[in-house]
Structures are given as C-alpha cells and as structure tokens.
C-alpha cells in the first residue's frame, strides 16, 4: 500500500499585519509529510516554527498558499469545520501539558471524545484506558493531575493526543518543561509510537531530542533552509549514556 500524504503545503505564507508594519512569519513553505514519518522541526525563536505548527494544527490560517491535511483542503473550511478537523485528525501535545487540574488521568484523556461529532467512539472510557496503557500509565488511571510527576503528566497528554486515533500527532516543545532523563523517556515514547505507525511532527529546540526523529526540517526567518533525513538517529540507551558523561567529553552524535 503506497503511503499517502498526511501534510502537503504549497507556497504557504503567513503575514502578520500590525498597523502599517507587515511581519512575514512564513514565506513559501513547500513541505510534504507522508504517513508514518517522524519529523523534527527546529529553528531559533522567531524562525516561524510556532506559526507553522499553528497552521499545520488548523489553529491558524495561512495568508497565501495551499494546505492539505490527510486529504482535506483546509483553506476551504470554516471555523466549526476547523474545530472538527482538529478533533478528528490531530492530536496536540503542548510544552506545559495543559491538563485539567484536579481531574483524573482518565477524564483528561477522554476529553477530546466529548467534542466528537462523528460518532466514531461509543466507549470513551475503554479507549482512554487503552491510550493510557499505550503510554505506560496503566497503573495511574485514577490519579489526579496534581498527583503525577512532570513526565507522567506529559504521558497523560500524549495519551490524550492518541485517544481519537488521529492522522497526525503535533508536539510543541514536548520536553521543554522536563528534566533530561524524563525528556529522553518522552522522546523514546515518540519513537515507539512512530514504530506503531503514528505520524509525528515535533517542534523542539533541543538537538539531542530532535535527533530521535527520522527527518529534520530547519527553519530560519520563515523559510525552510534544510530538510534532510537523520542518518544517525539517537536511541534511549545512547542518550542516557551521553547523559552520564561529564560535560567536557560530550560529543554530538551527528
């Protein structure tokens, strides 16, 4: 079976108008991401990677250019349809988890299913449990958010992104609030999910985390300056070993 395109953008641009000043956040982005890919998007702050993520995630619209997500032409959609696309095709993971406080892991994971209008899911609780098992939190189902560590909270958030079986998982700095060890665990979880066939796009500014992906896109000043497969992928074992080394001996695996 030929792998179809999950993301396809043609000449995508985003211009922010602030009075007379125009800021070109993105210019002429052409990007194709196939099913089953694991892509890291890197770039300095202000390079446009957040704007790109918002457009890919259907939270924002491009000023010009075409964007097709899993066969749907996003440009033509209205607000409600965009919300439904987010609900059905995308799983979001945020830097600060964005879980509901004082709420159990299970309820947090089931949250996207509340807004499902397709009627695909009848057994929300079962699906949420399964998603929590997938991220290795089977024993924390009824724990409340504030009773979990940062890494565990991010796992709950990942389970929430998996529960609606989306075409695309979008992670915005998923390890930004975590320590190195927890970061590696999360990156490794992404690798596992990718191995199970999930398409993942991850924004990060940490090179050692980006290195877990299969492909790296580098942005600068709103343009793609490099888009290459990663030859020497990092693994959990390698990254943990690197962590043990004193700072002076650390070398870049690239």
């Amino acid at each position, binding site marked *: 079976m030929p792998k179809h395109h999950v993301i396809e953008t043609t000449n995508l641009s985003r211009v922010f108008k602030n009075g007379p000043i125009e800021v070109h956040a993105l210019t002429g982005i052409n990007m194709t991401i196939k099913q089953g890919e694991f892509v890291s998007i890197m770039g300095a702050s202000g390079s446009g990677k957040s704007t790109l993520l918002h457009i890919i995630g259907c*939270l*924002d619209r491009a000023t010009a250019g075409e964007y097709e997500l899993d066969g749907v032409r996003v440009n033509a959609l209205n607000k409600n349809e965009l919300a*439904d696309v987010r609900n059905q095709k995308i799983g979001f993971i945020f830097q600060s988890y964005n879980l509901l406080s*004082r709420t159990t892991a299970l309820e947090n994971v089931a949250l996207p299913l*509340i*807004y499902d*209008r397709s009627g695909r899911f009848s057994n929300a609780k079962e699906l949420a449990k399964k998603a929590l098992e997938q991220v290795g939190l089977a024993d924390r189902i009824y724990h409340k958010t504030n009773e979990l560590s940062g890494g565990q909270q991010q796992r709950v958030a990942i389970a929430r992104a998996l529960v609606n079986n989306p075409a695309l998982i979008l992670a915005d700095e998923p390890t930004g609030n975590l320590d190195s060890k927890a970061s590696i665990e999360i990156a490794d979880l992404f690798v596992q999910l990718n191995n199970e066939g999930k398409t993942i796009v991850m924004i990060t500014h940490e090179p050692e985390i980006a290195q877990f992906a299969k492909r790296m896109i580098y942005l600068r000043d709103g343009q793609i300056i490099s888009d290459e497969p990663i030859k020497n992928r990092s693994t959990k074992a390698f990254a943990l070993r690197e962590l043990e080394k004193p700072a002076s001996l650390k070398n870049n695996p690239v």
Partner: protein
Amino acid sequence: MKRFFKIFNVAFQSINKNRTRSLLTMLGIIIGVAAVIMTISAGEGATLQVQNQISGLGTNLLMIQTKTEHKAGINVRMGRPIDKKDLDMLQKNAVWMPKISPLVAIGVQAIGPNGYKSTTVYGVSYDYFYITSRAIELGEFFTEDDVKTAKKYCVIGETIREELFPGQDPIGRQIRIDKVLFTVVGLLTQEGSGGMGQDMDDIIVAPYTTIQNRLYGQQRGYNLIMASALSEDHIVDAEIEATELLRESHRINPDDEDDFDITTQIELQEITGNITGILTILLGAVASISLIVGGIGIMNIMLVSVTERTREIGTRLAIGARESDILTQFLIEAIVLSLVGGTIGVIFGFIGNQIIFKATGFFIPTAMYSILIGFGFSALVGVAFGYFPAQKAAKLNPIDALRYE
C-alpha cells in the same frame, strides 16, 4: 443530545471543583430568591387577612351614600342627601334587599359612672344587627318598636364597656352621650380590629330615630343606608335595583349621572385587594433588585473564572471544541449556579415564612406563584448574566489562549 449531556457534566464538575466559590456566588441568588418569596408571600398574607375581615362583615352588604367629590382637599357632597324618603321608598319597593337600615354616625363623648370616652355613636334600625351580622354577648338588641318610639336605649362594644364600666356588668345602667341619658340594653360580642385596622368594639349603637331627634340637630338625611342583598349571588341584582329605584325617585334624566354612590362589599374587597396588590408588587420589585445584584455577582465570578481558565479553554478549543461547545459549557455553569441558588432560596424563603408565622402568629401562605417567579427569575438571571462571560470564553483565540500565563 448525548454531547449536550457530556458538556453539562463538564460544567457541573467545574462547579463542584470550586465548591466554596460556587456557594458564595450562589449566596446572592439564594438571598434574592428568598427575599422575593418572603415579600410576595407577606403581601399575600396581608391581603388574605384583610379580605377575611371584610367578608366577616357579610359579603352581601351594600352601602348607599350621597355622591361626594374630592375638591380642593375636602369632600363636597354633590347630590341631595340620602334621607327618610329614600329609606321608605326602598323598604316599600326593593325585592332583592330584604334588610335595610339607615345609618347616622356622630362623634360624641360618652360618659359612664367610672369613666368617659370619645367614640362614635351609630344610629341604626333593628336590621343593622342582621346586616352586619354582629352578635350580642350580654343583654339584648333594642327592638323594632324601640326604634319607632325613639327609645333612649343603646348597645355598646367591649372597648366602651372597659372604659365606662371597668369589670362591671353594664346591662340596665345608664350612660350620658353628650347631654342625653341612654340605658345600656346590650353588649356586643368582641370582634377585634377591622380590615382597615379600626377597633370594631369602639362603638355605641342606638336607634337612629333617637339619635336624629336628640343628638343630630337640624341636619337632615343619613350618612348612608346599609342594606343586605338576598344572598351573595344577588348582590349585583340588588345594586341594579337600588340604582334604578333611586334614579327614578330622584328624577334623574337618563343622560345624567347618579347623585348617589352604591358600594358593595365585593368592591370594597377589590379596593383593598388593589392596595395590598400594589404593595406586594412594590415589595417584590425591591426584593428582585437583590436578585439582579446576585446576578451581577454570578457574572463577576464567571468573568474571573473565564480569565482564570483561559488556558483550559485554549486546550479545549485545540482538541476540537467548537465555539458553541465552550459557550454552552459556561452558560450551563451560570444557569446551574443560579438554579441551584434559586432552589436553596425557595427552601429558605419557605422556612423564613414558617419562622415568621411561629414568631408572630401572622400566617404567611407561601404563594405558589412566588416560587415560580423566584425560580424563573433566577434561571433568567443565570442566562442573562452568564451569557456575556460565556460569549467572552467562546470568542477566545485558541493560540492566544494557549499562550496565556
């Protein structure tokens, strides 16, 4: 529908998570609804009490008076006075009014062996006791013959007895009204205060003939003629009959207005009903201001809640909630807050009425419609004051909301 139930659940959970805050928010509504119910019920209770007392006078009562108009601050008599001619004519011709009595009232000084009192003496015929359904406690009423022969007999109320004959049997004893000596033949059964708060026992009743001859001086005519209709159902017939007879006997042209006024007990009830009704509305309006203040409290807290939960709203939008889902959630939250507050308020209002009844003996029926008003108002307040914050939440830009610190 299933999704609506889920969103309802979400709203309910977030109320439950902030229990103290939710309760304090509801307090405004609780007090408002309780106040509305208690004031409306108090008004209802007052109306009921007044109407009971008026109907105690006999609901088939008619009062025929000379027409008066209020001019330059005083009541001016507009027509010829109601007099003996009218009384005789009515007694001769009326079919629907079997009992008719004139009434002449004068303020006098009554002096007894042990005290004196300023009071009103009513000159009436024997029918008066029947029309007003007053009962006798001691002695007896004066008779038809006593009226005809203008005997100086009188029947007194309990208040008069207390002042003039403290602790004594007044029957057969004499009192002086102005300069005339009257013999007390009867004591009226105590009746308490009347519909307008007047003392129904501060009264001396005597034959109208005696009063007119001895006390009334040169003034002709009566203050009014009292009559009772055959039954309560025939009070309108009686009113029409009296009007026609009096117009004929006063020779009033068909195009001219009556020169007399006929008041029935029903009208009296309506008038007092109107007065207490206006009072109830007024009090209810004051109480509902507190409901509006309670609503503003809800709006205030909901706005704080929206700001506080900006990130949560952003997350919900990002994972696929539509604007309408967010709107519904916050609107339900506001409505549930005010409805729960309303329910508690209804209970408090009911308990409050019972406490007032226990403490003062003033019976307040908790009017069903006051409960509906209180409840309906609180739901309305929830929608009205919840809409703005809910709208604000729904219109948040998801990107900005997610970044909100």
